[in-house]
């Protein structure tokens, strides 16, 4: 059984000129015969071989997608976007977890501790978590993947937004879950609008200066405001005390909501600045 495909047969196979049984015979034989495979390899389309090889090398040299990244792809995010969000999460999950854990202790203190103080500490601290997220979102000093990001073809603004969302999206539900345990009713969620407003405002400021500076400046203002207002707040009831800080007043809440909306508009208008920031 030393039958082999000869050149004439291969020629006829390639040009579809064999009867069906002959076509199949050639296929079955070549698939399992090493020397005939070698013969076919010698005649193969070199351009196609090189194209496929190059594509393969690129795919093999790309690091495999992590679990988060694959999940994000599944949800419908594009390849580049999923990679950015995935990398952001894997670089930052430790401090996000740390921040939320600290908040959990504050919640614990608030449920057992003195009236108002614990609740106020929680509400004042909570908006700072997304702010830190914005601070580390983009820039040469804070971002270990900055060099890669500048080489990427994605616009800088898109990277900043993806990063910010990657950090705030898990942080906000986690903090909200903690709020449920606070014996303060709807007031326990008073941090939400300031958090969104401050995060958006720092992004808007980030079109003028470094994002970390913008976030640090706003955090300082926020803490100063809280300190000054709460120093004079009446200590009669927890709710009264917390509402002593203007930000937790209904009017203050409205103010932060509009601050967020205006800031996002500014970011959209000035998004080109993130390119120059490189």
């Amino acid at each position, binding site marked *: 059984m030393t*039958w082999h495909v000869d050149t004439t047969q291969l020629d006829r196979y390639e040009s579809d000129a064999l009867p069906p*049984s002959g076509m199949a015979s050639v*296929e079955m034989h070549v698939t399992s015969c090493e020397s005939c495979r070698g013969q076919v390899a010698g005649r193969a389309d070199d351009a196609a*071989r090189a194209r496929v090889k190059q594509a393969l090398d690129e795919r093999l040299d790309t690091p495999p997608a992590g679990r988060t990244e694959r999940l994000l792809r599944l949800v419908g995010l594009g390849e580049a976007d999923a990679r950015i969000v995935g990398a952001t999460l894997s670089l930052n999950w430790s401090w996000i977890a740390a921040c939320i854990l600290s908040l959990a202790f504050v919640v614990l203190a608030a449920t057992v501790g003195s009236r108002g103080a614990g609740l106020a500490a929680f509400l004042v601290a909570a908006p700072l978590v997304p702010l830190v997220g914005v601070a580390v979102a983009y820039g040469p000093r804070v971002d270990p993947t900055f060099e890669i990001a500048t080489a990427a073809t994605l616009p800088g603004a898109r990277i900043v937004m993806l990063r910010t969302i990657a950090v705030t999206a898990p942080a906000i539900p986690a903090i909200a879950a903690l709020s449920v345990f606070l014996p303060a009713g709807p007031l326990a969620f008073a941090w939400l609008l300031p958090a969104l407003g401050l995060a958006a405002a720092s992004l808007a400021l980030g079109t003028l200066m470094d994002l970390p500076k913008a976030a640090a400046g706003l955090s300082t203002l926020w803490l100063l405001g809280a300190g000054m207002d709460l120093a004079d707040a009446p200590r009669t009831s927890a709710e009264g005390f917390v509402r002593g800080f203007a930000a937790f007043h209904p009017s203050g809440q409205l103010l932060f909501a509009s601050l967020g909306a205006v800031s996002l508009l500014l970011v959209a208008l000035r998004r080109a600045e993130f390119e120059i920031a490189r």
Partner: protein
Amino acid sequence: MDGAGEGPSDSDLLMAIADDDRTAFDLLYARHFGWLHLRLSRRCADPALVEEAVQDTFMTIWKKAGSYRAQGDVGAWVWGIGIRQLLNRMRQRKTPAWHLLVHSERLVSAEDSVLLSVEHGDLGGAIDRLSPELRAVVQATVIDGLTTREAAQVLGIPSGTVKTRMMRARQQLREALT
């Protein structure tokens, strides 16, 4: 006939690939690209789609080399991956199912019909005389090694029809040989 040539055998290469050996992978690619590309080109008229399928096949080989358990021929194993990758790609693109094959006058024999047709003279002829519909079913199941369900998808007919056509094809071939 594995190992007839010089250098490591294909199954040795697969073992090395399972340990992430890129050199072994490149060698396997050099050995198998040609015939796989040629044979897949007979199944799909779009060269770009065929190239994508070949690429997917070698990606799968890179990832799954460890699952080759020296059961049977490496070429047949590679083909099994290749034809399914091509089907995937064709399904994604909604390429009209296998029309090419049903209408064309090519393909098909039974298992090792090369040898049989030499000895029994007429098997090759019998296969060539099958109607295109029956031949397409024999082609998809026997030659391409697809399951009844995959063949049904590829040919755009119900699984039951694949089975009955296969039965009729077998019957006709048996009659031609006796």
